[in-house]
């Protein structure tokens, strides 16, 4: 439940380092999220969709390298 996740988040003043990053388990995208934080943890090969046939194959090497 979204509300449960939110209430488990640390209080604002103490969560500078974590709260404005990207939580891939969370549906919400902070208006303040940094570009690099968002893309760094994006599940590029896609997450599994429970109960549905999957189309994903072997996971691509998860690197930050471009090109």
């Amino acid at each position: 439940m979204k509300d449960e996740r939110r209430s488990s988040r640390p209080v604002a003043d103490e969560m500078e380092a974590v709260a404005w990053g990207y939580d891939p388990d969370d549906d919400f995208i902070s208006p303040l999220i940094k570009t690099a934080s968002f893309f760094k943890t994006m599940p590029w090969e896609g997450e599994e969709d429970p109960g549905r046939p999957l189309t994903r194959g072997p996971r691509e090497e998860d690197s930050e390298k471009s090109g």
Partner: protein
Amino acid sequence: MTDLSRLSPAEIDALPFGFIGLSREGTIRKYNRYEADLARMNPERVLGKNFFREVAPCTQVKEFEGRFRDFASGEIADPALSFEFVFSFRHGAQRVRIGLVKSPLPDEIIVTVNRVLNVDLPLSAEIRHDPARQLLLDSSDQRVVALGGDFWRALDRGLGGMPSQARADTLRLAGFDWGINHALRVEALVQKTHKLALRETELYVALEYLSGSIGVLGMGRFELDLSHRKRGLMVVHHFDSPLVTASEGNGSCCALLEGLHAGLLSHLAGRSLTAREVTCSRNPKEPCRFIAGTPSRLEKLFHPTPGSSDADLLASFGVTPPVQG
């Protein structure tokens, strides 16, 4: 238009703008997650407090609280009121557009908060004409060439003899190179102006920079739909693409935009991405839509297992994947 007064708590939390429900006295009854993140406040801690006195004291001015009180008392008779305001958060100032709406609930006013992004760049200034040399220059003195519909139609016809796949690949490659280099140029301007790399800026600001910068070139504008991000996919909505009409309405030049968006997003993501058009706008009011992701992810997406969520997603865009034999 969404009726803000009838949303559930979960729907209020999911809104892409700040939403605060205040009593006429300013007591906070609702405080959504966007606003909590923007203000870096814990919503559980602010409920029941007075917005003007205990949560956002910078709003105790006639420009905000004064308008709110006039609106709440009915002195301002309009059903809604909108104005710009600058919040003085501890973590920095934030320009916002405030909306005040009367809630059907007794004694409640809904306050909406939309960020006003400061994305002024030299690039976004007007293009100027040098009549002596007959040049068009942007304000970073980069030459700009205006290419009308005749050029795009000529390009379309010039590529017409190529096999369709080779033609699309050529345009995609050119677009990708354009996108990467365009993003680098925007990056240089952002660094010069704000001392930040694009990847260090907020995601929505970076996207606004890039969308605005291609808009200056007359390419329309784009928005990025991130609702499929858990599946490794993003959807680009490109509005007012000149290529749809320029290529005699058949969208055959849109592979250039596929490459452009792949290049722009690759720069932001720091990895090589690709994009495929899923709907080409024939109606000027409808955007062209592109799905972007890694090459391997898109390969899987466009060859889905029947009945899979990928097949559903493609179907939602009206795309029929090739039959797997």
